[in-house]
């Protein structure tokens, strides 16, 4: 602006100061707006009562070999399957390099006969079928997601279909041989 009119030194000095004050004012305003924006945005994040979800304890003694149950944890289902010898063998015998999300069966279980996974398809969040008797278990003896056709194996690993990841293994500890604490 100053160059466009006459090169007046006072004027240039003034415009420098004025620019500084402008930037300062805009800068302070921006910081103020941002510090107000954050609590607004953050108010939509999970609240304390939602975060304060207790972990759950599950009695495993009533689950027969070959069957599975569904329990609710953090508003989501968790699958607990009492695997048969055949299912354990199948899960161990897979060539890891052929998997979409390579993981060994040993890394996904603490006790070979108990498979505990979050029952939410990693594609778009549907509940895969295969827990209750008579539901389709997919091509790999695990779970089948009816929404978009993802097949999970007997270790809960994605084998076929659009899902990118294996079923998530939650943190859990065995309190006794027949009781598990999830979360």
């Amino acid at each position, binding site marked *: 602006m100053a160059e466009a009119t006459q090169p007046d030194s006072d004027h240039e000095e003034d415009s420098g100061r004025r620019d500084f004050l402008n930037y300062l004012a805009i800068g302070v305003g921006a910081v103020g707006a941002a510090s107000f924006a954050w609590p607004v945005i953050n108010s939509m*994040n999970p609240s304390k009562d939602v975060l304060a979800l207790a972990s759950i304890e599950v009695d495993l003694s009533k689950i027969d070999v070959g069957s599975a149950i*569904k329990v*609710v944890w953090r508003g989501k289902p968790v699958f607990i399957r009492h695997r048969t010898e055949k299912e354990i063998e199948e899960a161990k015998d897979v060539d890891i390099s052929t998997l979409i999300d390579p993981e060994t069966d040993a890394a996904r279980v603490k006790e070979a006969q108990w498979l505990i996974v979050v029952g939410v398809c990693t594609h*778009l969040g549907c509940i895969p079928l295969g827990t209750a008797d008579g539901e389709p278990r997919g091509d790999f003896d695990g779970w089948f997601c009816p*929404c978009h056709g993802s097949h999970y194996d007997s270790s809960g690993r994605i084998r076929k279909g659009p899902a*990118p990841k294996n079923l998530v293994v939650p943190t859990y500890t065995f309190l006794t041989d027949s009781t598990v604490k999830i979360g």
Partner: protein
Amino acid sequence: MSNHPAPNFKNPVIRWVDSRLPVFSYVHAEYGVFPMPKNLNYFWNFGALAMVVLMVMILTGIMLAMQYTPNVDLAFNSVERIMRDVNSGWLLRYIHMNGASMFFIVVYIHIFRGMYYGSYKNPRELLWILGVVILVLMMATAFMGYVLPWGQMSFWGATVITNLFSAFPLIGESIVQWLWGGFSVDNPTLNRFFALHYLLPFIIIAVVALHVVALHIVKSNNPDGIDVRGSQDTVPFHPYFTAKDSLGLAVFLLIFAFFVFFAPNYMGHPDNYIVADPLVTPPHIVPEWYFLPYYAILRSFVDGWWIYEIFFGWWAAAKLAGVLAMFGSLIIVAVLPWLDTSKVRSCRYRPIYKWAVILFLIDFIILGWVGGKPAEEPYVTIAQGATMYYFFHFLILTPLIGWIERPKPLPASISEPVLKAGSGAQFAGASAAKMEKS
């Protein structure tokens, strides 16, 4: 506007108001004497129809909000109460439910009208982009509205769509938890969706206002796609288009009423009359019919599809690719003015592109059809082919045809083809000349 000085209102109250706030002059200039091309056909009704549906949706929506309870334990029953106990509640809800479908039908026809007659081209690019913004806002509003009855499709539709955002690497999971306000779709989600479902229609009104202001600056396109040369090519909005829009509206309202009174649930899904259960996924989740083409695009991207492997396989998971393609399918519509390389607007004078637009419409319908089918053969292959064609149409066919096509000669004026058809070719020149003089 300067061509039409404010009329001299006889009523002193109107005159008093108008000299202080010229709303009456504005309506007179923009909807009274506003010049409209005189060759507009019935496809030009659909903007006005969309406006009417928006008003109907807001009115019925406000009445429904007075009776609805946004809580996971009460929402489903509060909707059933509206259906059974609230006076005319069933009517309000069925109008609102079917109104959403009507809105999309009308807007999709409005958009294809624009594509066929080249309404997106210079100088109407910004008008077109504002239209795409309205479409996206409508989709967000409709999606959140569908969650409110808290049926099985509400819950699982919300779960699937919000999970789309988890496809983004690193931040995806945090975004989804932020959207949910928890670890799954639950009460906080329902509450915020209700708040936003109430808010967004008013933002749509604001963008519609910009859309209309932009339209009144660049003026309406017409079926010949040529510029208006002067007042001999136009007729005033009133009474010509108030009448034409009213006739179209009457027919449209009959169709709307048919669905409301005789087939209110035809376009819905029966599973949404089962209360939401977070532990049971319905065997076959489908979104509302107006989302099916985009849903088909989303689902097409799976490991092993050669298109996916070439364009995304080396940098993005199939899920992320599907999400990007789905959002991309809308963004690509917004940039259509720059993808179309032809100077000729209307497909009437574009012998090749005309068929490309019709094929695109068929492709869009095929996408909608497979989007409603389960994810199995042969539907997966059909969806992938149709998805490929969707992008092929915009990215390859549209620019290419613009370069190679030889358009038919354009008429000299809007009047010319009308007069040719009406009074025979030999008189056209003479009467057109007479028209110019008058």
